[in-house]
């Protein structure tokens, strides 16, 4: 992209109305072009002026403490507790929400425990292509995958699929775990882990006939989570996965 092309797109970049592909190209250009970044700053000044001119109005005085109290409640939630929006409250475009569900499940199932030890290049390329095609269709940020690796003495295998919704849009993020454990029965705890120490609890796996699956739908940002661990009720680790971009 040339500077002229990027500057032509800057207002839409600023107002978040570019499609994902174009947005990524604009951001890529901006990272390496100080002059275009400076132009963006000038336009941001315009947005700030617009906001002061057209929608600045003092809220009721009591609202401040109310908002701070709400944030305190948010902060007091124990780390690792499920996101408050785990229940799939359908917001925005319901059909896309359902389409995302169906598509993710279909693709995840099609992998059939596929991101396994036998990672062949052609298979991976096909998988990546499938996920990219889904992203192009559904929007969203990215798909990420993980292969469950059994802990010592365990035989748990399976697949983790995360779908990161688009930041700033009314878009759900998803997590799906499918596990196969011939020697295990009962419940198992599933947690997503982030490098900053945060964790997010997913609904438990319930193994029946050696198989189990669980899924999570949330408005919470899943992008910080790059690992998943499955533990037995006694706390022992059954399996873990590193989650990487598809």
């Amino acid at each position: 992209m040339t500077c002229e092309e990027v500057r032509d797109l800057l207002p839409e970049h600023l107002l978040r109305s570019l499609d994902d592909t174009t947005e990524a190209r604009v951001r890529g250009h901006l990272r390496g072009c100080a002059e275009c970044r400076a132009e963006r700053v000038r336009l941001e000044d315009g947005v700030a002026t617009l906001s002061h001119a057209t929608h600045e109005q003092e809220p009721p005085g009591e609202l401040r403490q109310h908002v701070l109290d709400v944030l305190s409640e948010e902060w007091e939630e124990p780390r690792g507790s499920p996101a408050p929006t785990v229940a799939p409250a359908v917001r925005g475009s319901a059909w896309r929400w359902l389409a995302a569900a169906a598509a993710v499940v279909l693709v995840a199932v099609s992998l059939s425990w596929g991101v396994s030890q036998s990672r062949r290049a052609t298979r991976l390329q096909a998988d990546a292509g499938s996920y990219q095609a889904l992203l192009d269709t559904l929007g969203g940020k990215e798909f990420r995958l993980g292969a469950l690796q059994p802990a010592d003495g365990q035989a748990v295998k399976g697949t983790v699929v995360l779908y990161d919704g688009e930041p700033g849009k009314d878009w759900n993020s998803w997590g799906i775990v499918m596990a196969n454990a011939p020697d295990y029965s009962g419940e198992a705890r599933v947690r997503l882990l982030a490098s900053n120490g945060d964790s997010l609890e997913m609904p438990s796996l319930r193994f029946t006939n050696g198989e189990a699956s669980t899924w999570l739908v949330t408005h919470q940002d899943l992008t910080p989570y790059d690992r998943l661990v499955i533990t037995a009720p006694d706390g022992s680790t059954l399996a873990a996965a590193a989650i990487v971009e598809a």
Partner: protein
Amino acid sequence: MRNVRTDDPEADTALMTAFVGRDERAAGVLYDRFASRIYGLGIVMLGNDQTAQDLVQDTFVKLWRTAARFDPERGRLETWVLLTARSLAIDNLRRRVLESRSLQELGPPPVHDPAPGPDDLAATADLSSRARKAMSTLSPEQRSALELAYFGGRTTAEVAALEGIPQGTAKTRIHAALLKLRVEMAKEADHDV
């Protein structure tokens, strides 16, 4: 030209780092800096005091939940906060449409009496006054295109279709309007020196 920017990227990064760390003072600073514009946006776009208050609450919760994503390299904190609020307001409007509730039924926005003392608000009022003067310098065509894009969440293609103009013209009007606001705001600031 006097710099009209009111924020500092390093200070903003530090502020967001503190906010991510659940620092109530940081939350208070963010509130004091942005709540009036978020609330005003709610009044303008959603036309209802209670919904505007909900917008403020929802915006701050969303800012907290997505705070780790804030990257000053991708834009200023001020823009990020404002467009997060705008996005939530647009979502709210879309839900109303989905619920088949006509926007016309909402009636005019209620008049809200801002109670706080004038001393606290003097700087803000001055800034708003200067910003409104800057807005008045836009041509009707520039203002219309900018408001459709900003408040309506319209793409330039949609703005062009609604205004009956080529897409390139819509882009130019929005771009020129934003730059003109900046220039006029700076002039107003210089007059006050």
